[in-house]
């Protein structure tokens, strides 16, 4: 019974609408009204953000927390880290708690990089001597040595991010709660962050990790909890939970996807995807995609203003959330030089989609100058049907892996034999 985290029947209720967060006038009017008319105030409307959550986490466990936006993941994290209190139930977390719900909390524009490291570090719960001791490594990690004594109002957003994460990476609490902080920054930075997270996870500390990045969750956590509508939907082995979670997304069988109504987005919002169409090579809507088929996807977007040097990408994930490929304009140096304000579209052609049959999940993004404008996770599910890619009638099958190539085996001369027996199927 040496749990690290024990959550017992926790529920959290929020008031909808203005609620108590109104004006003094309303409070007075309400009081006066009650006094005069003796009429009870009907009370606010409620929403249960968390509904009877119970869980236990052992010391040193690394647990992933997944679920759609608004499912209650972040609220749970806030309750665990004592930022907000449960309406009912109890939470017991042992040891020093660190929570990282955002990178660079408490940064002040007017303060220098160094000063902000102290500020941010102490807000995250570090002692001054810990910050003193870690300062060298933090500067190293953030890679902003020559700017440490410059006010951070002169920093680029990337530099701020690096500095913020550098501080967080040196938090040495017993328990650490991390919310979707990897979703920002460029790929290189994300990789660095993930590496740091892995180190934390291996360091024997308890880590609760909220993310939409299934690959990151799978990579870091053995155990994952799926939260849906404020309840624990599934709690168990990461692979099982992720698979079940991803399967809960409706398949993208409509070949034209309207993206305007999707609230789960990240980025500046200067560019927004509005529609995505799956086409065949003749530009008609494609209904069934076979392994090895060409794939054409047309993205429609909307720019808030003229956007120079706009990059697009489509990420293909396996059903376990492993990133198979990020197909983007950056590698082919095909940025849109200037996307004018208003609607626009761009097409992606993949010559041959060499993925084994199965379900794949697509994420799409738009960015410029290392800044994401729109990021949509799990925007569509792509089901690939088996095909006779090699023209042998044997097809490609899911059990052969994730991807396949055009390949050829050439036996050595001595093995050449006229009447070779028909080969048995591979196991």
């Amino acid at each position, binding site marked *: 019974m040496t749990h690290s985290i024990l959550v017992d029947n926790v529920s959290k209720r929020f008031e909808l609408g203005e609620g108590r967060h109104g004006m003094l006038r309303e409070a007075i009017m309400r009081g006066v009204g009650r006094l005069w008319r003796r009429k009870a105030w009907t009370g606010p409307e409620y929403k249960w953000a968390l509904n009877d959550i119970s869980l236990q986490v052992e010391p040193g466990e690394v647990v992933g927390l997944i679920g759609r936006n608004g499912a209650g993941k972040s609220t749970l994290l806030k309750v665990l880290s004592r*930022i907000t209190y449960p309406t009912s139930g109890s939470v017991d977390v042992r040891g020093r708690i660190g929570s990282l719900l955002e990178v660079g909390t408490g940064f*002040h524009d*007017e*303060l220098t990089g160094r000063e902000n490291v102290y500020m941010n570090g102490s807000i995250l719960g570090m002692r001054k001597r810990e910050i003193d001791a870690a300062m060298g490594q933090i500067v190293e990690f953030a890679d902003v040595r020559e700017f440490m004594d410059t006010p951070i109002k002169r920093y680029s957003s990337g530099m701020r991010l690096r500095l913020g994460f550098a501080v967080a990476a040196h938090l040495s609490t017993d328990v650490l709660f991390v919310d979707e902080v990897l979703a920002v920054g460029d790929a290189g930075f994300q990789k660095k962050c993930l590496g740091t997270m892995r180190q934390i996870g291996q360091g024997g500390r308890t880590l609760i990790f909220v993310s939409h990045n299934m690959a990151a969750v799978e990579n870091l956590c053995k155990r994952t909890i799926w939260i849906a509508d404020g309840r624990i939907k599934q709690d168990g082995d990461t692979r099982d939970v992720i698979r079940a979670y991803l399967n809960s997304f409706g398949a993208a069988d409509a070949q034209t996807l309207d993206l305007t109504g999707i609230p789960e987005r990240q980025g500046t919002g200067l560019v927004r995807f509005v529609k995505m169409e799956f086409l065949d090579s003749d530009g008609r809507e494609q209904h069934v995609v076979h392994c090895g088929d060409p794939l054409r996807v047309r993205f429609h977007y909307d720019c808030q203003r003229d956007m120079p040097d706009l990059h697009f990408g489509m990420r293909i994930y396996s059903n376990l959330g492993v990133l198979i490929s990020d197909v983007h304009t950056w590698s082919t140096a095909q940025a849109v030089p200037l996307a004018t304000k208003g609607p626009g579209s761009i097409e992606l052609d993949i010559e041959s989609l060499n993925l084994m049959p199965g379900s794949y999940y697509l994420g799409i993004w738009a960015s410029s100058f290392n800044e994401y404008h729109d990021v949509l996770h799990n925007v569509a599910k792509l089901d690939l049907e088996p095909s006779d890619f090699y023209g042998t009638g044997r097809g490609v099958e899911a059990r052969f892996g994730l991807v396949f190539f055009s390949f050829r085996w050439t036996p050595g001369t001595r093995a050449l034999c006229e009447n070779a027996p028909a080969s048995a199927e591979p196991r």
Partner: protein
Amino acid sequence: MNKAALWEIWRYRELMYFFAWRDVKVRYKQAALGALWAVLQPLASMVVFTLFFGRLAKIPSDGLPYPLFAYVGLVLWTYFSAVITQAGQSLTTNANLVTKVYFPRVALPASSALSGLLDLVVSLVFVVVFMFYYGIYPSWPILLAPLFLVGMVLFTIGTSLLLAALTVWYRDFKYTVPLMVQLCLFVTPVIYPASFVPERYRPLLFLNPMAGFLEGFRTCLLTPRWPDPTLTTISLAVAVGVFVLGWAYFQRAERSFADVI
């Protein structure tokens, strides 16, 4: 006051210090005169009040040079008014912190009171210079002067806690507080002595603890007289009461800050 809450604040004392340090840093960053502003603000008010109240209206000043009398009053009053104005908004202006990280919320308003102390100390150094200029030297009662400063800080923190918590729910206080501060300057013996108020209203005056602290501090610092024990006791008692009230209310309200703010 429960022990756990106090222990928690003690654990986070460094954060409180960092908040105060940030306040000070930011306040005087890119200001050429820096902390000199702490002196200049009450000094400017003093000049105006000396002209209009001291010279024109001939307000008495208990036999002290009016500029010195007014300056000492204004220095303390500036501390009180600046801190409660800033502390009152400390939670709402730092809403991003309140919703993103855990720390004892008291740290925010308390750090405002702490950072204000720096200005107070700088201004008090100037008071000493002023005293030399007028040839006024303290005698034994000065030993009691710190008591009034402590009382004032206690009262300031109590008021700050109340206002900060209330502002989370009712942003009206953002507008009310500066207005109240302005009006209260005239119902507190800052620029006039308590003796200026008719005797029978005087106990009423001292229900405002700031009246007792200002009078007491001035008497101890600038005259060889001892402060009035009854009035001092009333002021201290009210200050302690406000502090306890503020603390209790804040503790109760604290749990909902992140949800409401």
